[in-house]
């Protein structure tokens, strides 16, 4: 753990809130005071001074945190530790975080070192330029003073690398050379309008940085400086030296101007690099930094024959966890996670926070075969360790994708793509697991890409259609309940399972288009059944994306109005996971739909995060028990108990229950015995085309299951 969390009480007295980290004990091994009290001000003189600023911050925390800046301490063995302190206000507690940055300091130091070496080299170049400019200016001054002809002087400076302009004090040009024309788009050398204004332009431009320039030039003294100058449509940084030529009466006869374009020496890239190389929350190198290191490492491995392993880690359901915590707690979680990951890799390995909940780790080895399983297991295990954040126990897991150089990718882009793909498949397989990239994943990915592309045309090409599976009432109800199910007849591939294409559609906006079409088509069909005296309640599945759309309630209202279907004959099925990303807002939408008269069913109940607690707060009319439980009936006692409990609970909450996936008579009898309201499954009816529904309705009119 790289962080020591201290609470500051009046005094100030600091109490450790977490286990004292090893680095701290290396610096200060004396035993703790009573109640974990630490005299940090005495241990760290640096902190003693920071506390005064922290006190001001705690009284009025205008920002999220106050940083002390980095400082270096020597431990008892003479090792350097780079530390930084942060003052935070957290639930009215005054918190002081001490963070050990030593692990990532080398990389950070390298960047600063490089930046300053470059700045130093540039400073020396400018100094050298300054000497050259002065020398040239003195030469020209000397020639003018000896009445050398302007033509002869022009010849001498014609090909000089520095730009030269000799002008009268009023700015009218006497001569200029090619280098000047290379910087400024001026033409000729006989005092054209553009040339005339160049001195004035320089003076005006330099004035912002050097207000004294007018005075210096007017009094016949030399001036030099660096400023930004307009050169045609460009802006350039220019180093300019202006030297006067005086006559015997000390009047200025000419001005010798020597200029150089120094734009290249003033690149802001170094500053950008410093600002953007590290992520504050985790104190880890950021994506940009990682990308650079990965690219360099691949080049080195290519030369040395080493193997490089890239691990791409993504926290499962992070958004949901983060939304349930406040912003600072989310940051704390990521910070803790990064500390855990960092402490579980070797010093020579590299870890970066790519942003959000994504981390990347890079391992290099000269071994031809490396057993990555223990490494991956260890990383997932440390992620799983329980955390207490914001007073809550938080359980997190992560999915990990692995790709190796050179087997899985020959460059940084390819390798990252493969590791990301493996991570994606690890998530698809249920999360909290790792997966090594393999060619079959690429194939699966390719298939998904093709499906996504073709699905875009399926709707307009009339390749989608609906079938309807009856839900049979085990009591007395004259309405036939139907669930609308989507089918895709691909012109080349034939029938494609919804289990294949619906998840693909759900990853894009296609699910909205398709979902809207399903709603309209099902309602239209229900209205047609009603017109034929077939009394139905049409059940339509709704995706999370559809429900998230701000206008979903209005859309349903519009469809009902357009098709003339009574709202009581429409049921919308949502899953638990659809609701979990923002339970409160989703519940509001469902409430509005219920107020329209539409009924709501909770699909796949029991398969997800099943919290019975939230059920009583949700506007739900029906529960659909997940078929996993039904399939294990009657052999599995646990499934029977769960199913019976769900039915009982639902009835207590005034909900009815649908059991889906009913395939045997034993299952049907059991469900009938526990009072389940509706059953759905292949035992009774497969999904049917609309033209067969009439016959079903007729046959059911005389059929009763309660006898």
């Amino acid at each position, binding site marked *: 753990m790289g962080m020591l969390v201290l609470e500051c009480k009046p005094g100030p007295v600091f109490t450790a809130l977490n286990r004292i980290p090893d680095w701290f004990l290396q610096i200060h091994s004396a035993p703790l005071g009573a109640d974990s009290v630490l005299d940090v001000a005495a241990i760290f003189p*640096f902190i003693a001074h*920071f506390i005064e600023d922290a006190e001001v911050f705690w009284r009025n925390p205008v920002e999220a945190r106050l940083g002390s800046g*980095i400082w270096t301490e020597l431990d008892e063995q003479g090792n350097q530790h780079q530390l930084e302190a942060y003052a935070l206000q957290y639930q009215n507690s005054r918190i002081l975080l001490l963070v050990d940055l030593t692990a990532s300091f080398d990389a950070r130091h390298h960047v600063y070192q490089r930046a300053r070496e470059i700045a130093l080299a540039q400073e020396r170049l400018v100094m050298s330029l300054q000497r050259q400019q002065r020398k040239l200016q003195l030469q020209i001054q000397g020639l003018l003073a000896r009445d050398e002809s302007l033509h002869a002087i022009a010849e001498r400076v014609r090909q000089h690398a520095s730009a030269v302009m000799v002008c009268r004090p009023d700015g009218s040009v006497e001569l200029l050379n090619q280098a000047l024309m290379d910087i400024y788009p001026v033409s000729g050398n006989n005092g054209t309008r553009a040339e005339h204004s160049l001195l004035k332009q320089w003076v005006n431009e330099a004035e912002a940085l050097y207000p004294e320039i007018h005075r210096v030039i007017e009094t016949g003294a030399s001036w030099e400086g660096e400023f930004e100058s307009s050169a045609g449509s460009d802006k350039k940084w220019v180093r300019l030296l202006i030297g006067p030529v005086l006559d015997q009466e000390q009047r200025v006869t000419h001005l010798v101007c020597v200029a150089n374009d120094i734009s290249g020496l003033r690149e802001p890239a170094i500053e950008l690099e410093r600002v953007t190389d590290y992520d504050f929350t985790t104190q880890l190198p950021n994506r940009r930094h990682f990308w650079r290191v990965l690219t360099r490492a691949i080049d080195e491995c290519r030369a040395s024959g080493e193997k490089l392993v890239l691990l791409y880690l993504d926290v499962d359901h992070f958004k949901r966890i983060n939304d349930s915590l406040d912003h600072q707690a989310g940051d704390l979680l990521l910070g803790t996670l990064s500390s855990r990951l960092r402490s579980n890799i070797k010093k020579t390995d590299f870890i970066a926070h790519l942003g959000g909940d994504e981390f990347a780790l890079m391992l290099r080895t000269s071994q031809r075969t490396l057993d990555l399983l223990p490494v991956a297991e260890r990383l997932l295990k440390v992620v799983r360790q329980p955390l207490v954040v914001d007073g809550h126990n938080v359980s997190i897991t992560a999915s990990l994708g692995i790709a190796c150089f050179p087997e899985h990718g020959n460059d940084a882009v390819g390798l990252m793509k493969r590791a990301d793909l493996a991570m994606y498949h690890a998530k698809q397989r249920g999360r909290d697991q790792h997966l090594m990239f393999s060619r079959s994943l690429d194939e699966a990915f390719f298939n998904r890409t093709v499906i996504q592309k073709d699905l875009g045309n399926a709707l307009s090409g009339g390749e989608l259609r609906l079938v309807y599976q009856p839900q049979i009432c085990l009591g007395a109800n004259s309405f036939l309940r139907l669930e609308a199910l989507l089918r895709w007849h691909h012109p080349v591939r034939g029938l494609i399972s919804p289990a294949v294409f619906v998840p693909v559609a759900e990853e894009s906006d296609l699910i909205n288009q398709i979902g809207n079409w399903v709603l309209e088509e099902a309602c239209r069909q229900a209205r047609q059944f009603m017109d034929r005296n077939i009394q139905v309640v049409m059940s339509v599945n709704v995706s999370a994306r559809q429900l998230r759309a701000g206008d979903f309630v209005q859309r349903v209202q519009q469809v009902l109005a357009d098709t003339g279907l009574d709202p009581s004959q429409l049921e919308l099925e949502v899953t638990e996971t659809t609701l979990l990303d923002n339970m409160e807002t989703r519940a509001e939408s469902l409430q509005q739909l219920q107020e329209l008269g539409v009924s709501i069913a909770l699909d796949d109940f029991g398969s997800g995060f099943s919290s019975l607690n939230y059920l009583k707060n949700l506007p739900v009319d029906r529960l659909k028990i997940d078929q996993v439980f039904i399939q294990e009936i009657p052999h599995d006692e646990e499934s029977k108990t769960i199913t019976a409990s769900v039915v009982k609970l639902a009835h207590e909450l005034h909900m009815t229950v649908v059991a889906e996936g009913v395939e045997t008579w034993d299952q049907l009898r059991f469900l009938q015995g526990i009072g389940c309201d509706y059953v759905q499954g292949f035992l009774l009816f497969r999904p049917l085309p609309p033209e067969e529904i009439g016959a079903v309705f007729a046959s059911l009119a005389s059929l009763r299951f309660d006898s």
Partner: protein
Amino acid sequence: MVVKKICMMGAFAVGKTSLVRRFVHSIFSESYQTTIGVMISKKKLTLAEQEFELIIWDLEGRDEFTDFRSSYLRGVSGVIFVVDVTRPHTLTVVRQLREEVRNHIGEIPALILLNKADLADQWRLDAATLELLEDEGCTLLHTSAKTGANVEEGFLALLRSMTA
């Protein structure tokens, strides 16, 4: 023992850390190692039979990427400003820093070390500016962390002015 905090200030790469290392550990390295943040060192000294512990705050070199943190000056008893005699710009930086220190904590004992004095052939400082500083009452001292010339004398001179 009397504890005194002093700060080392100046542009980057002028030799602040080298001066401290020479003074505290009697070592010197030619290679430039930039400082990030603050490096704190301690050195015990005896002056006029009084024992002192100097807490030396070696502050990250001033450049366009570094903010001036006035909090670093809290409780400081004296400041050593360091100039690289081969880089005129570093003298400009010291003049700015001196002004900022004055604005934040007023007049305190200070010393300007003209470092890298062993590179006499590359001397680039403007004599008029140095004269101006002397006229303003600044104490200037030529030092070389490389040869050790005047390093200890510099720290002692500051300590003397702090205890005067």
